[in-house]
């Protein structure tokens, strides 16, 4: 797997590793929280814009619709697939099973963004419309997770929650930038391209530096993460990602986009879903789901998942 070293030796991933090492050495290096939030907004706007501009150029075919449908199905279904494993093998109660499962149904924007940068730098370009799939997959899993957690209890969804699901900040920004990209097209994108294209990889480096710090500190601080759950946090991305790649290949996506669907399925949310869970399932243990999604699954995907699902998608692409 030559892609493994290509991934591992790219600047963004190296900065992630640097952050993790610094945190492991208990260094006091840290990125202010508002800066991290700003970089995350920037990355979402940039990836949305670029996707929209590409779609404006290439047009949308029927694969957009099937990819969106695939994303919806994956996000809504994955929680039901893995919740029983969390309960039985992971020994979690129903509330925590539902909360963790919601994270794995949803997606990590930065994992997608890193994959798109790493793949793109090696001539393996994800289709622009996959950004819409990314946005589509953010929130359905929240509803599935809540359904699992409180099957027989009273009201499932408060008004705040519905708003969180429908008009979640990252969903709005991703889809909004995507739409703006489609409206302005290549020509209108040119004056903002220095910020949103040329600046992209550099900002991603700094953001991943912070993610490395946060992920490692999360692991070091956690009390709730058992060995069983840590194992699941590695098994889930492999399992879900494989389903994603297979699904993507089956509906006729090209290899890079099928790999991207794998990345999306494999990744776990650590922004939209934790906030929704604090709101709707406050009894669930935040330390637990963040340790799994941010502390284990995120690093695994950045370092292993990205080359792995490319490799799988290329094999399938050849096979089909």
């Amino acid at each position, binding site marked *: 797997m030559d892609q493994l070293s290509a991934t591992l030796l790219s600047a963004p991933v190296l900065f992630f590793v640097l952050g993790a090492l610094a945190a492991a050495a208990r260094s006091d290096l*840290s990125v202010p*929280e508002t800066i*991290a*939030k700003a970089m*995350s907004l920037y990355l979402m706007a940039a990836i949305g814009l670029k996707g929209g501009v590409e779609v404006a150029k290439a047009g949308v075919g029927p694969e957009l619709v099937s990819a969106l449908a695939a994303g919806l199905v994956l996000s809504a279904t994955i929680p039901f697939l893995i919740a029983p494993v969390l309960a039985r093998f992971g020994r979690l109660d129903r509330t925590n099973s539902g909360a963790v499962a919601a994270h794995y149904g949803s997606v990590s924007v930065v994992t997608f963004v890193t994959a798109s940068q790493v793949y793109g730098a090696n001539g393996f370009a994800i289709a622009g419309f996959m950004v819409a799939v990314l946005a589509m997959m953010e929130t359905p899993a929240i509803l599935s997770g809540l359904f699992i957690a409180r099957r027989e209890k009273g009201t499932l969804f408060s008004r*705040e929650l519905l708003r969180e699901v429908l008009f979640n900040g990252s969903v709005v920004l991703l889809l909004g930038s995507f739409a703006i990209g489609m409206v302005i097209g290549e020509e209108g994108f040119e004056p903002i391209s220095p910020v949103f294209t040329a600046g992209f990889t550099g900002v991603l480096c700094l953001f991943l530096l*912070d993610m490395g710090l*946060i992920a490692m*500190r999360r692991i070091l*601080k*956690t*009390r709730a993460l058992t060995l069983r759950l840590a194992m699941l946090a590695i098994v889930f991305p492999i399992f879900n990602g494989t389903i994603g790649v297979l699904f993507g290949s089956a509906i006729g996506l090209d290899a890079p986009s099928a790999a991207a669907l794998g990345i999306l399925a494999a990744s776990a949310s*650590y*922004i*939209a879903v*934790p*906030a*929704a*869970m*604090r*709101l709707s399932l*406050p*009894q669930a*243990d*935040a*330390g637990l789901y*963040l340790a799994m999604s*941010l502390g284990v699954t995120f690093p695994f995907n950045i370092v292993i998942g990205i080359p792995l699902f490319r490799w799988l998608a290329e094999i399938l692409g050849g096979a089909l």
Partner: protein
Amino acid sequence: MIKMTERERIEVLVDAPLAPQLARLALQAGITGHTLIRTDSGQGHSGEWSEDLISGATAKYLFLTVANSESATRFLDSLEPLLESHGLVVLRSIVDVIRPERF
């Protein structure tokens, strides 16, 4: 000398996503005013937390409200069902205020 009157000061340490819910409960108890104060980090039985997370899901606020005794009691009672599930820390003390009709 300025005249001051006793009121109750209620402080609740609360997860950021839940703060609007407290504001609503306070309003229902007849308390029109509150102030949210930023916290940075902390430690308790459920471990350490700090605001270093990009989701903001684990950030906490100190919800401060001053109210007369009846409203304060109503508000505290309405917090009861949330105490366990939301891991709230609730403090009450006595303060003197100016212009008591506001509270």
